[in-house]
């Protein structure tokens, strides 16, 4: 009988990488993994080793993933850092697509109206005082932003809010918010709100923000969001 090798271990500078075969059954894989990891002679003095698991084209349910994690965790000195798979479910893919998609809406958002979308919002039109736009991603307003804009409203602090004319009642990013000053003020043209390192919402020129958020660029953005 030819013994198939389902598990290959690779040592890298950052720790171990476990390449798991994606054609055998999950049970076979667990059995062999159990054996392989037990064989290792463990040096007691050694520090914890981080393990990256590569699944290839295998999809794991969350309980299977948990099983795998507990198995590896039982072995001495091993910590699972990451489980990587080449495949995701259709559902996840759709959500991913939706979250990284840009929705274009052309209308004036008037007082009392709320626009809520998943992904990035490109609004061609104004947001009037009393109107609200919300997006899970970034918000770009080609028009006057005079109402409330809430970017990354499901918790994405990296989201930004840009507007041709920025004179908002409030800017909100993730769980943070900032409001307009109490005195009468004029708006600013072509500016952008983002969260800086200190955890405050800052408004700055568009050009500056483009440098601070390089992930705004096209495809990289959608990959990083995932």
């Amino acid at each position, binding site marked *: 009988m030819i013994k198939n090798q389902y598990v290959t271990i690779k040592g890298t500078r950052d720790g171990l990488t476990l390449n798991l075969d994606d054609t055998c059954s999950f049970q076979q894989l667990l059995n062999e993994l159990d054996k392989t990891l037990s064989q290792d002679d463990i040096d007691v003095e050694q520090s914890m080793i981080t393990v990256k698991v590569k699944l290839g084209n295998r999809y794991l349910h969350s309980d299977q993933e948990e099983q795998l994690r507990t198995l590896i965790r039982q072995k001495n000195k091993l910590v699972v850092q990451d489980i990587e798979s080449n495949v995701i479910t259709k559902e996840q893919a759709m959500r991913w697509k939706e979250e990284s998609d840009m929705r274009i809406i052309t209308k*004036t958002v*008037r*007082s*009392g*109206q709320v626009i809520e979308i998943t992904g990035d919002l490109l609004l061609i039109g*104004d947001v*009037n*005082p*009393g*109107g609200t736009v919300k997006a899970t991603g970034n918000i770009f307003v080609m028009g*006057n932003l*005079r109402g409330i804009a809430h970017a990354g409203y499901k918790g994405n602090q990296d989201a930004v809010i840009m507007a041709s004319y920025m004179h908002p009642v409030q800017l909100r990013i993730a769980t943070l918010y900032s409001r307009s000053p109490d005195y009468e003020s004029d708006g600013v043209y072509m500016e952008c709100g983002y969260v800086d390192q200190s955890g405050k919402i800052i408004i700055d020129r568009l050009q500056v923000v483009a440098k601070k958020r390089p992930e705004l660029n096209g495809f990289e953005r959608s990959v990083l969001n995932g």
Partner: protein
Amino acid sequence: MAEAIVITSGKGGVGKTTTTANLGTSLALLDKKVCLMDTDIGLRNLDVVMGLENRIIFDIIDVAKGKCKLKQALIKDKRFDYLYLLPAAQTSDKNDLSPEAMIEMISELKKEFDYIIIDCPAGIEQGYKNAVAGADQAIVVTTPEKSSVRDADRIIGLLEQEELEPAKLVINRIRNHMMKNGDMLTIDEIIQILSIDLLGIVADDDEVIKASNHGEPIAFQPNTKASISYRNIARRILGESVPLQSFEEEQGMLTKMKKFFGMRN
């Protein structure tokens, strides 16, 4: 083809009723057959402004409930050949009127009249829904105040959901000196926020209040600022293109002389 125009604003006290009365009068002065309709049930006052209060026998609720015929409830303004008022009820509730009843009444009125002008109550509840139900077109009245522009914006948003032509704007009670000093929103600022077509502007004029109290809309008077404004709006509704009035104060003799000699003010 008859047209039903609803006059609305969201906020109260900006001049919906005054605008309704004056537009109706102006259109009647231009020989149109006009019917005014008051839908502010429980707080009617279009009849007072028109000076027809003492003639009311039946009202809009009586018509809706079938207690009388539509023609019996219409009150003729004796100053014109063809200006009628369908008064609101004072004792009933807004919920006694339904959008369906409104649509039915308006389609009946359309056979007889050129223009049906509907006075909408303040607010965005049932009364507003009734008033808008049968209308083909909407005129939004606002004043150069932030709160009233905010409410006008809300109303325009709601009107967009109805199957109406895009709403038109009337800016009422403009005080020229306050706009100049920056104490009031300017016409341009208001249009920029609301982004709808401007139908007309009306100056804040004591004469308007005086005329309303006499039960005689200001549009009757030949040459006050406000009456000209209202008549201009009526002409624009008929499709004429009339330039906006300027509210600049008449210049005194001295300034005119100075200007003539090229001296600076």
